[in-house]
C-alpha cells in the first residue's frame, strides 16, 4: 500500500509529540542528568561521569535483581504462552458460551494491580486464605512469608492467574480469523488434530503470538506492584525485582545517581530483549531459511 508523501502530516502528529515530550522526554532527560552527576545535599550537583554506571554494572545487588527478573520472565513465558494457546483452543466458537468465557477471562485484567496483589496475599495466607489453608490441610508446608520458594510459587501462580487470559484472548482472536475452508481441507486431507494445530492454527497465530510474547515479556520484566504487595520483595531479597529495587533506591533511600543510572540500564535491557524477540520471531515467521 503506497501512502502519499505529505509533510503536513507532522501537524497531525504534533499533539502527540508535545504530550510525549512532556511526559517522557523531559523526565528521561532528568534521569540522564542525574545519572552522570553526584550530589551531597540540596541542589548541589557535580559531574560524576560514568561512575554510577560502573557502580551499577558491577554491583552484585543489581546482578541478582536482573537475574531474578530474567528467570521470572522466562518462567512466565514458558507457562503462559503454551497455557494461553491451550485455553484459546478450548474456547467455544459460538453461542452464549463465547460471551461468558470472554467476560470471565478478561476479568483479572481489569483488576487494579495492587488489588491483584491483595487478593493473592489473602488467598495464599495459611490462616485465612483458601490456597494456603488447603495446601496446609493436605500436609504441604507452605508459607510464602518465610520460604523464598513458596514466595516465588505464589507470585508466579498469581501472574499466571493475572495474565494468561491476555495470551489466550490474543490467540483466540487469531484462531477465529481462520476461514472454515482450512479446517474442511484438513479433514479431507486426513490431517490429525496435531497436524491441524501445527500446520494451520499455529502459523495463523504467528502475528498475535508475537504481540503476546512481547507484551508478556515487557510487562513481566517491569513487574512491580503485585509482588510488592504480596511479599514486599522478601523474604530477604528473594523476590526483589529490578523495579522494586529501583523504587527502593530512588524513593526510599533517595540515591538519585545510582537509581538514575540503574533506570537507564534497566530501560536499555528491556529495549534490547524486546528487539531480540521481535527480530527472532519475525525471522521465524518469514521462514527462517
Amino acid at each position, binding site marked *: 500500500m503506497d501512502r502519499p508523501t505529505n509533510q503536513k502530516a507532522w501537524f497531525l502528529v504534533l499533539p502527540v509529540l508535545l504530550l510525549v515530550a512532556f511526559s517522557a522526554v523531559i523526565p528521561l532527560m532528568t534521569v540522564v542528568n542525574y545519572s552522570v552527576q553526584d550530589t551531597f545535599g540540596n541542589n548541589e550537583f557535580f559531574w560524576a561521569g560514568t561512575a554510577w554506571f560502573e557502580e551499577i554494572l558491577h554491583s552484585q545487588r543489581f546482578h541478582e535483581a536482573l537475574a531474578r527478573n530474567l528467570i521470572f520472565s522466562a518462567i512466565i513465558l514458558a507457562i503462559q504462552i503454551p497455557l494461553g494457546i491451550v485455553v484459546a483452543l478450548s474456547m467455544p466458537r459460538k453461542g452464549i458460551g463465547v460471551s461468558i468465557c470472554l467476560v470471565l477471562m478478561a476479568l483479572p485484567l481489569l483488576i487494579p494491580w495492587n488489588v491483584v496483589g491483595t487478593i493473592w496475599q489473602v488467598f495464599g495466607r495459611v490462616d485465612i486464605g483458601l490456597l494456603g489453608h488447603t495446601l496446609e490441610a493436605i500436609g504441604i508446608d507452605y508459607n510464602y512469608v518465610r520460604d523464598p520458594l513458596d514466595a516465588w510459587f505464589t507470585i508466579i501462580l498469581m501472574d499466571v492467574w493475572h495474565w494468561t487470559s491476555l495470551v489466550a484472548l490474543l490467540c483466540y482472536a487469531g484462531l477465529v480469523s481462520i476461514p472454515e*475452508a482450512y479446517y474442511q481441507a484438513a479433514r*479431507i*486431507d*486426513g490431517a490429525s488434530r496435531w497436524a491441524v494445530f501445527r*500446520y494451520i492454527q499455529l502459523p495463523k497465530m504467528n502475528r498475535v503470538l508475537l504481540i503476546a510474547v512481547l507484551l508478556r515479556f515487557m510487562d513481566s520484566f517491569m513487574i512491580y506492584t503485585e509482588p510488592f504487595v504480596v511479599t514486599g520483595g522478601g523474604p530477604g531479597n528473594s523476590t526483589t525485582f529490578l523495579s522494586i529495587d529501583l523504587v527502593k533506591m530512588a524513593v526510599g533511600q533517595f540515591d538519585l545517581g545510582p537509581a538514575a543510572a540503574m533506570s537507564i540500564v534497566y530501560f536499555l535491557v528491556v529495549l534490547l530483549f524486546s528487539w531480540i524477540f521481535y527480530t527472532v520471531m519475525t525471522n521465524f515467521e518469514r521462514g527462517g531459511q
Partner: protein
Amino acid sequence: MARIDLRNLAHAYGPNPREPRAYALKPLNHTWEDGGAYALLGPSGCGKTTLLNIISGLITPSQGQVLFDGVDVTAMPTEARNIAQVFQFPVIYDTMTVYDNLAFPLRNRRVPAPAVDARVREIAAMLEMTDVLRKRARGLTADAKQKISLGRGLVRSDVAAILFDEPLTVIDPLLKWQLRSQLKQLHKKSGYTMVYVTHDQTEALTFADKVVVMFDGEVVQMGTPAELFERPAHTFVGYFIGSPGMNVLAAEVDGTVATVDGREIRLPRAYGKSTPDRKVELGIRPEFVRVARGQGLPVTIRKVEDVGSYKIARLALGQREIAAVAPEGTEFPADDVGAVFDPAHLNVYVDGHLVDGTPVRGA
C-alpha cells in the same frame, strides 16, 4: 473411483423445516456414474455448494442417503469417505514447501515414502510445478497456490471422487483456460469421478460430460452440453445457458399451432390445448431465429450488437423483445422485417417445464 447415488436427498439449514421454501436443497434422486465428469451449474444460492458439501461429508443432510458404489456413507465423516475436494479460495499450508503440501494427504494416510515421492513428482510434473517443489508455498501467486490445492486433491490415487467448488474463481482468465483443459485431460487419463461446481456456463460446458443445472435448491436438468442447449428441460436452463439465452414467449397452443400475439406459428409436434390456468410458453434459441424480409412474425429491429464473430439482433415483437443470432456480414433488411423460427428447435413449456408433444407425420 466410485459411482455416487443420491437417494431422496434433501437439506435444510434450520431445524424442522415445515415449508419447502426452507430447504436449501429440495429432495432429489440422482446417480452419477463411476468415472464421469459432472458439473453442477447454477446461480449463487441455488444449493450447488450445499450438495457438494453433503457428498464430501462436511454437511450431514437432513434427509436421504449418499451412496458410494452402493455403500451408504451418509453417516461417515469426511476423512473416512475417501474423497478429495478443492475449494474456491486456495487452501495451502503456509509453512510447508510445495512438495510437503502435495505429500501431506499421502503422509497422513501413511503411504510409504518412495510411493509418496513418485506420486508427488508425477502430479507436480502434470501441474508444471516441478521447479518450485522446494519453495515455500507462502510466497507463491494466487494461481500457483490454487494449483497446489488442485494437486492435493489429485495426489491420492485411491479417491472415490474429486469435488471442485468453483476452483478457478481466483485464477487469471488466460490461466483458467489452461488449467481447465489440463483438468479435462487429467480426467480422461485418470478416470476419476469428478464433480465440478461453478456458476460459469462455459466452464461447466467445457469440463463436463454431464451438466447438472440447479435452480432454487432443485436440479432442473441433467444432460450433455448438447442436450442442455437444444432441449432445455426448463425455461431457466434455456435462459441460463447460452449467450444470449433462449427466447421465451408466452403463447397459446392447440395441436400443432401456437399463437403468439395473435400470430400463428406451426409446431413440429402436436400438443394438447392450452388452458388459461397454466402458463404456456414457447422457447426458441436465438441461434435458430432467422431475420428475413417479408417472412415470419413481423418485428422491428431495435438494435444490432456486433460481438466480432457474429451479430446479435435485438428485435421487438409487440411489447416483447427477442434476440436473433446471425453470422458476421449479415445485412439486415431495413423494412418489412420478419423473424422466422426454425420449427425443429421450437420447444413448448408448461409452467416452466418442457413438454414433449407427439410427433406429427409430415410436419
